[in-house]
């Protein structure tokens, strides 16, 4: 079997795994619903007929579980995809989707709504914060001469730190009682609030930005060889870099706006997939996206069931799983080199 066929098979397998994960995860939860009841409810919604369950139990399936799982799939796919792209564009293995200050900016936007009570929808404020942070990063990177990937990363670190500091200040200053709990949940990343509007936001972002991005593998492969080599192959390096960074940032901003800053997905999953299929981006991008989707669906299922009726923010689960996995990946890299 050729390498390309192998990758195609892997893609089909992962897509099937994703579909299966969604199908199974929607039947799992603290409420005592049988598989038949869950799928009866979903089928009734899809065909427009009367639901076999009571309104409330139907609501558990259709208003709580299903949108949450679909959002998890979209967010996981997007974060892993953008993580892989960031790692390629900056030629830095530690890059993740939040590199350019995006998650810190989104957190600041979220905090203004959650704590300062600014009357804006939370996803809108988070997205606006993400874009502002991105603009600040690019402005800072360009302020001292030609923009290089290193300068951009460092500018991103500076903007992240500043946004995080302001966020912490607002929390300290304003948070009374246990208002900090809501903010903490957002900062760790949580899908508990994901309803159909979140599915729409994350889904449309993935459709409009994510899917085109998965097809940029050939360009990223050229980037991996260096700017000069990429230019010699005919790629307009600067334009492409900024387009991809901008698109990645927009996608991340949209995802973070509905899920908070879920960590480790964008950082670790591209590495794990790279171990299996090698560094070629034409395979890495779509497979990272699919793997990310499956991973986050299951991480969120764990988060909402393992301590039921209590719930964990999913960012805690991804960190608990992601950190050791990352350590293992690092150890393997060292032994290879």
């Amino acid at each position, binding site marked *: 079997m050729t390498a390309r066929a192998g990758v195609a098979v892997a893609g089909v397998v992962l897509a099937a795994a994703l579909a299966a994960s969604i199908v199974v995860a929607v039947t799992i*939860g*603290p*409420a*005592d619903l049988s598989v038949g009841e869950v799928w009866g409810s979903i089928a009734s919604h899809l065909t427009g007929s009367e639901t076999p369950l009571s*309104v*409330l*139990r139907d*609501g*558990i399936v259709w*208003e*709580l*579980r299903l949108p949450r799982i679909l959002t998890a799939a979209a967010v996981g796919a997007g974060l892993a995809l953008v993580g892989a792209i960031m790692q390629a564009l900056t030629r830095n293995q530690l890059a993740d989707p939040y590199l350019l200050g995006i998650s810190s900016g989104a957190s600041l936007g979220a905090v203004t709504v959650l704590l300062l009570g600014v009357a804006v929808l939370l996803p809108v404020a988070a997205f606006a914060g993400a874009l502002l942070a991105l603009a600040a990063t690019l402005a800072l990177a360009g302020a001292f001469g030609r923009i290089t990937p290193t300068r951009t990363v460092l500018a991103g670190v500076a903007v992240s730190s500043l946004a995080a500091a302001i966020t912490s200040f607002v929390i300290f200053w304003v*948070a*009374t*009682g*246990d*208002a900090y*709990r*809501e903010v903490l*949940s957002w900062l760790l990343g*949580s899908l*508990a*609030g994901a*309803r*159909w509007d979140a599915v729409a936001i994350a889904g449309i972002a993935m459709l409009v930005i994510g899917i085109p991005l998965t097809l940029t593998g050939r360009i990223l492969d050229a980037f991996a060889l260096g700017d000069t080599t990429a230019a010699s192959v005919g790629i307009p390096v600067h334009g492409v870099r900024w387009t991809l960074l901008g698109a990645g940032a927009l996608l991340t901003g949209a995802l973070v706006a509905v899920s908070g800053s879920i960590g480790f997905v964008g950082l670790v999953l591209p590495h794990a997939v790279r171990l299996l299929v090698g560094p070629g981006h034409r395979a890495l991008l779509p497979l990272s996206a699919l793997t990310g989707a499956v991973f986050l669906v299951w991480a969120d299922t764990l988060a*909402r069931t393992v301590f*039921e*009726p*209590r*719930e964990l*923010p999913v960012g805690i689960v991804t960190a608990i799983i992601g950190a050791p996995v990352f350590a293992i990946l690092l150890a393997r890299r060292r032994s290879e080199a």
Partner: protein
Amino acid sequence: MRRIPLLVIPTALLLAGCATAAPASTPTPEGPLTLSNCGISLTFDAPPERVVTIKSTSTEMLLALGLGDVIVGTAFQDGPVPNEWAADAAALPVLAERMPSEEVVLEAAPDLVYSGWESAFTPDAAGERDELAALGVASYVQPAACQSAEQPAKLDFDEVFREIAEVADIFDVSADELLAAQRAELDAIEPVEGDLTALWWSSGTDTPYVGAGIGAPQLILETAGLSNIAGDIDMTWSPYGWESVLAVDPAVLVLVDADWNTAQKKIDYLKSNPATANLTAVINERFVILPFASTEAGVRSVSAATSLVEQLKALDLP
């Protein structure tokens, strides 16, 4: 084990540059009072005369015992005091809207810092308890709020009344009248029949933070005759998933009204959210609202239960 002699002139006064010192007084005829508070041993040679209160439970406890005069500063209050004490409360100096810093507390030259939350005694708030003690400032936490040690296994009114009596002892006043009134009010409460289920929603939105099995919310719900759906969780308050709420479909929703998370905001969320809008209690508007300050164990616990029962009677219950 450490003693905190209140007769020692606090070094803190020198640090804070204040001139007044706590006046020396003779021990009461019965001798010094020793007690254990969140695992720390306290000795009071004489009743404290300059008290800084943090959170409403402590302020209201002292006002209820007629000790408003000893309060030299309040901090991080949770809302207006009940009308009966409003006049006394109006004159109390406010040290901070939120947690006060140690310097601000010491500037008021207290001999006791009485807090409704144990977390007030950290370095970035009022200061650690042993550090305050070394400066001659005693510290006392509302016992029901102890978390590091001696947390009540399950709060009941005997414990609530014991705490009132303990505070009265510290200040060498009588709690008999107050306790008699509280007991009378408690005995007069007729629990609602039917063992209805209830959710006590304190704060949080996407993942509600609810009253769980061993604290004041559980006590108040039980006294009113309600069954707490989170009652088997061995914590005072706990996060709780919406799916579990929907699965149980509680008959009544008790909503805590706090400045940072109002009852109206909770109601708006319940009604606008497609998942929760179909809860029986939301459709039938079975909401009971309690002010935050009355939901932590203290002198308002009995009246919270009374209010809960009154509001329940006005609802259309199954």
